[in-house]
């Protein structure tokens, strides 16, 4: 018997068995309590509430939504708003982060110091505080709708948000949209072709100006092909608020600002450490081989820097997505605010609603993690 206990394998099995028993007992205990509590307090269960009428309004919704819609639709609206804020936040944070990260390494003393000050300042302030600051202090200081900042009667800024004109959805609009897509694909194709040619013949082909040209030319062509008929809906002050055009609410703006500025500091650091991690020898080798600074950056430094910088950057994207849940502090209607907030309040089924919300984030996280793994795999140094 004792000998059995001394056997490492058997000990391992016993140990695991005990853990499983403990865990199951714990979960069973919790489950039993929960069921008893729910029954005793007469709380409803199940997902039937998703078909119930929500009864409350949501200010910003990418899909049509009215008070008569169901809680299920509230869930969808919240989810879409989460995706929108995450998407916009990621794009803005990447742009700002890249710029700051590169400026941080600038040979210009003042600029490098300013970039460092920016990073040191904003990454050390809680995000929630930044959101509240932008929302309560900066955006609140904007004028009221009647005294909006007015840019050529097309763009307006006031304490109700940012208003700008939006083209109507007609043939011309869709043609232009399609043309931009074509330009994108054509640029990619051109780039692939240029790379192949370079490997085959060694000759350089600079793609960039051609790509820019396509992005300008294609939409112009499409505009005329589509009937040269582009109608803009302009924001106009009517009654209490502006009507027409597109509105970005102060909640959305505050959240985007704060997420961008906060996450950008981390992205900038990732970019910087990625570039700095490329050893000096590599750069010197590039110079001694007669590469121009541009060539050395493009062919030697960046490919290595990106490999180091991308994983932490994607982690930051993940953080940004999770942090977008702080929207609830300013009332931007994403999933935590409207579904785990208002809907939860109206139906009171906390377990179902919180689980669904957690599941949403979990799935997003898993997808992004899978993306990261794929990238790491692809970027692995190919040993030859």
């Amino acid at each position, binding site marked *: 018997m004792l000998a059995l206990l001394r056997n490492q394998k058997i000990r391992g099995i016993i140990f695991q068995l005990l853990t499983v028993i403990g865990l199951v007992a714990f979960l069973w205990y919790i489950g039993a309590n929960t069921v*008893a509590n729910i029954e005793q307090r007469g709380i409803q269960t199940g997902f039937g509430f998703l078909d119930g009428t929500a009864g409350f309004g949501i200010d910003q919704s990418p899909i049509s939504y009215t008070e008569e819609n169901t809680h299920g639709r509230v869930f969808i609206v919240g989810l879409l708003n989460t995706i929108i804020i995450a998407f916009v936040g990621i794009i803005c944070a990447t742009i700002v982060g890249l710029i700051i990260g590169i400026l941080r390494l600038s040979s210009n003393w003042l600029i490098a110091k300013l970039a460092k000050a920016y990073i040191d300042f904003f990454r*050390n302030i809680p995000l929630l505080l930044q959101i509240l600051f932008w929302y309560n202090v900066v955006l609140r200081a904007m004028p009221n709708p009647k005294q909006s900042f007015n840019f050529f009667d097309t763009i307006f800024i006031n304490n109700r948000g940012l208003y700008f004109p939006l083209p109507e959805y007609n043939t011309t609009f869709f043609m232009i949209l399609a043309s931009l897509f074509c330009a994108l694909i054509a640029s990619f194709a051109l780039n692939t072709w240029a790379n192949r040619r370079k490997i085959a013949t060694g000759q350089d082909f600079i793609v960039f100006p051609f790509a820019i040209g396509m992005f300008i030319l294609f939409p112009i062509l499409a505009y005329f092909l589509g009937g040269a008929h582009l109608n803009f809906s302009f924001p106009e002050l009517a009654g209490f608020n502006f009507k027409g055009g597109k509105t970005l609410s102060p909640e959305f703006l505050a959240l985007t600002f704060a997420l961008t500025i906060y996450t950008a500091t981390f992205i900038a650091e990732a970019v910087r450490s990625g570039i700095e991690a490329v050893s000096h020898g590599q750069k010197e080798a590039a110079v001694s081989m007669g590469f121009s600074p541009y060539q050395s950056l493009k062919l030697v430094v960046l490919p290595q820097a990106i490999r180091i910088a991308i994983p932490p950057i994607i982690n930051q994207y993940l953080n940004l997505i999770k942090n977008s849940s702080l929207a609830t502090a300013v009332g931007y209607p994403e999933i935590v605010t409207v579904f785990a907030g208002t809907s939860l309040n109206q139906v009171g089924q906390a377990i179902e609603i919180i689980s669904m919300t957690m599941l949403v984030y979990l799935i997003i996280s898993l997808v992004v993690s899978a993306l990261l793994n794929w990238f790491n795999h692809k970027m692995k140094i190919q040993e030859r």
Partner: protein
Amino acid sequence: MAIYEKKQERKAPSSTKGVTFWIRENLFSTPLNVALTLLGVMILFWIVPPFVKWAYINANFAGTTREDCVSGGACWVFIRMKIDMFMYGFYPSELRWRVNSVYGLFFVLIAAFKYLKSPLVKIALAHVYFIVGFFLVHGGFFGMEAVPTDKWGGLMLTIMVAAVGIVAAFPIGVLLALGRASHLPIIKSISVTYIEFIRGVPLITILFMSSIILPLFFPEGMSFDKLLRALIGIAMFEAAYIAENIRGGLQSIPKGQYEAADAIGLSYWQKMFLVILPQALKVAIPNLVGVSIALFQDTTLVLIIGLFDLLAMVRLSAADSYWLGYETEGYVFVTFIFWFFCYSMSNFSQKLEKRFNTNLR
């Protein structure tokens, strides 16, 4: 025989030294740099003078009432009059010495750290400190008056939530990290599931869960204090992040160490606690400080579930009908406090990183 005379040293050409040279080289070397410098100066000019004017030159420091704020700048009188609330919340003023002595003990702890070598002893001591501190603040024994947690607030609550969160999460995190590195498949998968689940969801959903769902998990009649529920949620959350950082440390330990420990016949726990963890923790400490910074910032989230941390206290005070309109001062004040704490911690972690780096090489 030639006589060599020492010639006078020639000065470096004026174009390669001095302030002018430095300025030219570092600020105006290329047209792009000139533009960037001008932009930088513009940004500075745009931000700094108005802020200094508002926060210092035109600001009001003296006085005790709203009427003392007349000059149009910041009204620091508001902060001064509310500082007790920002620091201690509603903690009874005659008992605040208890909180202060916990702060004082912190310096004793730091001093003790100078003389201690083993990281495990240090960590154990830190745990003892936090537990003693918690009891001292809470009271309710040795004839000390108990202060219920609903009176706790302000910076004191912020620090306490962060500290207790880390301290409670640390042992769980170590176990999870060991579990994840373990060869036992079930243990490993449980640890991985837990860690990945927690890291996949935002803290706020965990806080919602601990404040709304947790009471349902326990039998009728057993209820937890609101603060305690938040602490449970935070510790659960933080444990996963600590585990990931310790795992990084574990991975950096060469295999030889494990084999050597096995060879001299140490049991699993002996091997881990005497050989592997002390080394792994040393590697992980800079990152753990990073986690602490993140947690310190995350404590602000407790305001969403209705606890009065520093940020919530400032918002509450700014809504006081007598002091309406001084919210900005409040936010600037909190910003400064948080920035000070986080920046000091991140500097500390950078120093640690440098020190440990040299040790490893």
